[in-house]
């Protein structure tokens, strides 16, 4: 199971960040962010300061999980796009590959058509970056690099310190 752990490196993070910034600008969105299917925030761009992104990430993932459950009951594959329309803000949620969720929050300065168009481009680009990460992880694992990196020396004391 740990084989499927999500890993993010500096280099790919910068690429993803750049893609999100671009999407944010070109779609005239308020905020865009990337979440993994388990509800963990990966990256974001835009006016995030007054948004609780951690909560948003977990609820978005819950939303995708619930609609995915509904899809299976109906014999559908998965709903790859969700759209919620509010009075001021709208939210566009889409799946990239099988494990990443791209969220765009926008208002009347943008439009659903524009968002859809830009999301499609960004999804392709980000999908590629995640493939690169997967390859890198495989390679590092093969060379035993990851083992040495951080967790090899975790001790009981480290854990006690977390719970002081």
């Amino acid at each position: 199971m740990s084989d499927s752990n999500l890993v993010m490196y500096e280099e790919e993070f910068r690429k993803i960040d750049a893609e999100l910034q671009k999407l944010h600008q070109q779609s005239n969105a308020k905020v865009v962010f990337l979440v993994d299917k388990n509800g963990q925030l990966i990256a974001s761009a835009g006016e995030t300061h007054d948004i609780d992104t951690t909560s948003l990430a977990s609820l978005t993932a819950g939303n995708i999980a619930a609609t995915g459950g509904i899809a299976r009951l109906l014999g559908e594959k998965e709903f790859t796009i969700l759209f919620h329309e509010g009075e001021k803000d709208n939210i566009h949620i889409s799946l990239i590959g099988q494990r990443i969720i791209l969220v765009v929050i926008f208002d009347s300065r943008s439009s659903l058509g524009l968002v859809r168009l830009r999301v499609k481009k960004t999804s392709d680009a980000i999908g590629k970056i995640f493939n690169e990460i997967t390859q890198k992880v495989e390679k590092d694992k093969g060379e035993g690099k990851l083992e040495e990196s951080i967790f090899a020396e975790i001790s009981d004391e480290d854990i006690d310190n977390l719970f002081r």
Partner: protein
Amino acid sequence: MSFINYSSREINCKIVYYGPGLCGKTTNLQYIYRRTNPEQKGKLISLATESERTLFFDFLPLALGDIKGFRVRFHLYTVPGQVFYAASRKLILKGVDGVVFVADSQLERMESNMESLEDLKINLAEQGYELEKLPYTIQYNKRDLPNIVPVEEMDKLLNIRRVTWFEGVAVTGKGVFETLKAVARQVLFELKKHY
């Protein structure tokens, strides 16, 4: 399925509180929330019914500190314990790194405990996990009530794997952090094996 971010130097781990309806899962998270410093926690989100039964999940993000220069974040979730929410429980278990089984110590709840444990095993298996291999701990909760079963007996019934267990009174916080720490410890040591 933890998320290791070498860029922001963070580790995210998902811990799920499982157990029958009304056993005290949400109460565990509420106590943890109350007793954690503001800078170490996010909002406690509860998707609940009018009568405060969990409908989909509770969620509490914790960032208790650093290990080897990495910020360690735990995302705590509870499942809805009521039997008919089975489909939701499955969804919450996705990507889990560690499980806490909260058992209700009252005599009349023993059957529900066993059912819930069986349900946990089945749901994990469906995702390709094995309870025997997952970071896992048990809390025998509601030890303050009069009609309870001795822990030794509960242990025989529910703790086949012989994992560490704790007596709990989630309403007063007894055993709550001990339980969390035990599962967190296993989750982090599991990472050590793989990363």
